[in-house]
């Protein structure tokens, strides 16, 4: 099992009331942007990723968001390039490049090839469709999001493997001269992992392509449902899905004492946390979600990644209040919500002693070949952030790796995704274990 370290690289210098007043992070004015603080923090976060390598993480992961102080990775490939040069061992996992949002797959192919070359083959490319707000920021037509995603992906694979020059006239992209002189270090090209929330179409596409699917902190029960769906598609494709096909990322924070850990964990709901990533109208733009996805989302009412949930759909159906906000009341509700989410094991906070059993449970249930720690959000200081990483790496990670070995969780590098053949007519094996959920009173 690969263990990775991830942070959104939050902008740590925005007063919470500005986010609460805006009812979300996206669209808070960039008049609050401070160049000195930002410059310091870009340096700090890059140093922090290097520290993750020093601590022994197998991978560092980055993501991309636009126009949103929740994440400073507006151009993730820039940071990935720096890490490609500075780090020596860790895999650089991108979760992921938003293909339909950038709308220039040839440029994407060039950028990623350079990163792979500079890192000498440590890149793991990840493709995402982009959050709803990314469509607005980049003026990407949400109704064509899935089509552009598929077309861009197919084009990049060709750009990396088909000798040029050649011409391409597609539906959404047109290139009269394809002959990139930056080609990936890894052959045929870097591994591709697909982070996602709950969209069945994405899961199906993933399974058909044999790409590992990285669950982003989704509730355990629905995640098992999704894994089952992936495994069913895999079976149709003639292979048995296993840990090498799945990854899981979860907000995790540690401290020397339980009290301190819980206090710091509050920052996962700073400004409303992921649920406040963007207001409803920006979260699900028209045409972005298929009917099937909307119906599936409507079933999951509690917080999911970036606030995409049934609750968000309900919010966008309703009037939307314009009354004055009582911020203390809001904070109280956020804290209560956080406690609930901790009970669901969707946020892990504590000392190594309390954290280890929780993550072991997650590993036992979801059986992922990749586990990624999503570091604390909000205005948390460097020392507390680094302590959390250190406690995880030194005290938690060895226990997790031992457990992963015991219950046999090969990662995608140990066992090629899609390589375990399933004989025609045979029933596929299970890919998750819901047993521990019942014992914990979870669904």
């Amino acid at each position, binding site marked *: 099992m690969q263990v990775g370290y991830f942070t959104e690289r939050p902008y740590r210098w925005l007063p919470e009331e500005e986010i609460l007043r805006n009812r979300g992070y996206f669209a808070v004015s960039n008049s609050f942007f401070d160049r000195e603080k930002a410059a310091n923090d870009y340096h700090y976060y890059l140093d922090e990723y290097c520290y993750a390598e020093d601590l022994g993480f197998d991978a560092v992961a980055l993501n991309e968001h636009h126009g949103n102080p929740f994440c400073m990775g507006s151009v993730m490939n820039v940071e990935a390039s720096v890490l490609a040069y500075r780090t020596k061992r860790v895999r650089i996992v991108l979760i992921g490049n938003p293909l339909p949002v950038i709308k220039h797959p040839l440029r994407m192919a060039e950028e990623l090839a350079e990163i792979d070359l500079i890192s000498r083959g440590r890149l793991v490319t990840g493709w995402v469709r982009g959050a709803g707000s990314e469509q607005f920021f980049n003026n990407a037509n949400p109704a064509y999001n899935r089509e552009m995603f598929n077309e861009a992906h197919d084009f990049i694979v060709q750009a990396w493997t088909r000798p040029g020059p050649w011409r391409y006239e597609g539906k959404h992209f047109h290139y009269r001269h394809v002959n990139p002189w930056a080609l990936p270090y890894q052959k045929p090209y870097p591994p591709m992992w697909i982070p996602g929330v709950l969209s069945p179409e994405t899961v199906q596409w993933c399974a058909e392509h044999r790409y590992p699917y990285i669950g982003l902190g989704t509730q355990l029960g629905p995640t098992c449902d999704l894994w089952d769906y992936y495994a069913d598609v895999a079976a149709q494709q003639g292979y048995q899905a296993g840990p090498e096909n799945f990854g899981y990322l979860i907000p995790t924070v540690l401290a020397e004492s339980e009290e301190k850990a819980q206090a710091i964990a509050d920052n996962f709901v700073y400004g409303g946390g992921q649920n406040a990533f963007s207001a*409803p109208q920006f979260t699900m733009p028209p045409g972005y979600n298929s009917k099937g996805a909307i119906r599936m989302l409507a079933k999951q009412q509690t917080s999911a990644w970036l606030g995409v949930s049934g609750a968000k759909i309900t919010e966008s159906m309703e009037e939307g209040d314009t009354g004055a906000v009582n911020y203390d009341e809001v904070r109280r509700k956020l804290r209560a919500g956080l406690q609930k989410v901790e009970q669901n094991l969707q946020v892990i906070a504590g000392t190594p002693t309390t954290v280890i059993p929780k993550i072991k449970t997650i590993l036992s249930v979801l059986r992922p070949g990749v586990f990624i720690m999503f570091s604390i959000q909000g205005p948390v200081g460097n020392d507390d952030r680094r302590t959390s990483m250190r406690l995880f790496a030194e005290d938690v990670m060895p226990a997790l790796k031992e457990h992963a070995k015991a219950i046999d969780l090969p990662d995608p590098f140990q066992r090629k995704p899609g390589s375990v053949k399933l004989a025609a007519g045979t029933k596929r094996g299970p890919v998750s274990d819901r047993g521990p959920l019942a014992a914990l009173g979870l669904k």
Partner: protein
Amino acid sequence: MANFIEETVKAAGAELALVRGGSGKPLLILHDELGYPGWMGWNEKLAQDRTLLIPQQPGYGKTPRIDWIMNYRDLGGFYAQVLREMKLEPIDVIGFSAGGYLAAEMAAADPAIFSRMVLVAPMGIKPAQGEIMDFFAVTVRRHLMATVADPANTPEYTKIYGGQMTPERFESFEDARAETARIGWEPFMHNPSLPHLLRGLKTPTLLVWGTRDGVVPRGCIDGYRAAISGAQVVEIAGAGHRPEIENAAEFDRAVRKFLAA
């Protein structure tokens, strides 16, 4: 009381859902970006001496989406084929909002297709002043609310859009907005070449606009006036983006007078 039927017409290679009501000379109604809201008071009045033909736009839930239609110009071309196959041209038309944009595209492509053209708060031309409201950047609820100046005192608005939004209703509005995004995303709800293509159009044209329209600014009306010399303008004082339900009497008077001229 409401005398209309829903039917399916096989035309232009598609199965087009259509609402037909009334009696008399045919009158084409092109609904707005949120879809056909149902048979209203203004429909009933005009249906007294006209046959209203209201095609349900492909991709809005009744007529299947047509993938080759990628913009309003394409949609206009599709509808033009339908009219020709049904032998309906030249026909009078009332186009609402994005339906007005659509009608203008059709007239620009084929000046003979409409005998008379009414554009109600039409999109399609970028206003020199003001902006067409970016309705994609608000929730469905806020979008609907923005379409009338005084929702609480517009009975037909409350009847159709007020109260609890059911998941089915929400889905049908999302269908409409999704298809509108697909064909109208950028340039947003206008085509820079449309004013140029309308030059010299001789089709008698009436532009109707509510003075409190929060979706389409007066600048769009000015744009159409500049493009179509001879176009008449009727402002409906105090109405928002839906004068046909916000002041049905004034709307009927203005449209009836124009169509009878």
